[in-house]
């Protein structure tokens, strides 16, 4: 009756993963390594037939949150470093807090299990589906008050068209990719001519996001090929692209 389905273990959050890890071994927060998280992740991926992107991104979220907790444990207590509830705590206090949160989470995980069991047993009892007998139909409230057939048709036509537009756009993106090669050429020429350029000068103001992305990729590719140098003075600051005299500069 139940479908045969291999249920892979998916962690529902950092606490879930921590609980799992704690259940298997003695655990020091500082010992949760990225490689261990990556191993866990790969193990799950292997057990999954197809890569489920939702699961993958959930897992990354888990990993990121764990690392945040880990970072809180590792970072020296700098006064200007704020990490919500973990700052201003002694290591012992931080541990106690984490333990309390894990215990609270575990309680709700247990409650969720009880709800699941309850739902399962409820699923074995069926309420009547037949609906009201014919002679009472006319007495039912008019849930469609104010709705006309024409109105429904318009709604459906709108929805159909919206979907068609969406499909068209999807095709458009697929059939007209922004060429990386062309953008590399363009960047190379600009930079060679001027000697240097900032990233924002390489595309028009208000350029489509995909153009910006491809321009960025073009810069990375040119950098990899040793045609340009890249500098960035500050985090999220303007990227400067500097021309390098290449031995195969055959196009100018």
């Amino acid at each position, binding site marked *: 009756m139940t479908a045969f389905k291999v249920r892979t273990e998916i962690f529902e959050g950092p606490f879930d993963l921590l609980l799992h890890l704690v259940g298997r071994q003695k655990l020091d927060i500082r010992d949760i390594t990225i490689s261990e998280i990556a191993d866990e992740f790969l193990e799950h991926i292997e057990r999954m037939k197809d890569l489920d992107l939702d699961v993958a991104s959930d897992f990354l979220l888990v990993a990121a949150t764990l690392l945040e907790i880990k970072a809180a444990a590792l970072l020296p207590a700098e006064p200007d470093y704020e990490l919500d509830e973990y700052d201003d705590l002694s290591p012992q206090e931080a541990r106690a807090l984490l333990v309390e949160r894990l215990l609270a989470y575990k309680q709700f995980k247990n409650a969720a299990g009880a709800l699941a069991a309850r739902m399962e047993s409820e699923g074995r009892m*069926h309420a*009547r*589906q*037949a*609906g*009201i*007998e014919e*002679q*009472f*139909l006319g*007495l*039912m*409230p*008019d*849930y*469609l*008050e*104010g*709705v*006309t*057939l*024409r*109105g*429904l*048709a*318009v*709604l*459906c*036509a*709108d*929805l*159909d*068209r*919206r*979907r068609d537009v*969406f499909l068209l756009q999807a095709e458009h993106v697929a059939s007209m990719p922004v060429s990386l090669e062309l953008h590399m050429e363009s960047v190379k020429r600009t930079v060679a001519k001027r000697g240097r350029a900032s990233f924002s000068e390489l595309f028009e103001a208000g350029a489509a996001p995909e153009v910006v992305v491809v321009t960025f990729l073009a810069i990375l590719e040119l950098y990899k090929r040793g045609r340009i140098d890249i500098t960035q003075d500050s985090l999220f600051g303007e990227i400067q692209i500097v021309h390098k005299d290449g031995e195969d500069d055959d196009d100018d």
Partner: protein
Amino acid sequence: MTERAELRGVLEALLFASDEPVPASRVAKLLEVPEGDVAAALSALAEEYARDERGFQLREVAGGWRLYTHPAHHPVIEQLVLSWDTRRLSQAALEALAVVAYHQPVMRQGVNAIRGVNSEGVLASLQEKGLVREVGRDRNQGNAVLYGTTRVFLERFGLKDLTELPPLSEFSPDAGTENAIRDRLSAIEGPEFEEEGGDLSVD
């Protein structure tokens, strides 16, 4: 429990859960019991209900056996139905209904694809209100439920059958009247769907 009492229990459950007449032959096959035994048990059950003055009756109609409320109680049931509260449909429910009406039979995935959002709750609510029903299963899609509109839906709009639905092609995007209709339809969503006192959610 005797075998007979056991058979009675299963029959009651099946009759109760089914939304259409249940043929004795089908039950016999399902339970691997001689059809004669099933028919006899059904007759006995019908008599029992009548004798015990139950609130419902078991009748043999075209296509099988079916439970009905006892006509003696129809006036009270009428009052009950009249007392059902009037909650209009949300915009989400209207959208799903429109899609089901025009694309039936349609799977939930089909409705999701057209509306661009999960329509599970909305379809369940439309089923509860008797506007949408399960019309079959798609064997090529792992027996996915196929949805269609109900008789109530047809009656509400005075349609003889689905071929009387106005063709979608009539509805060009930007005609003034249609914009007015669109405005009116979108005006239907709003605070009246705010639930009170833990009431049933509409969508």
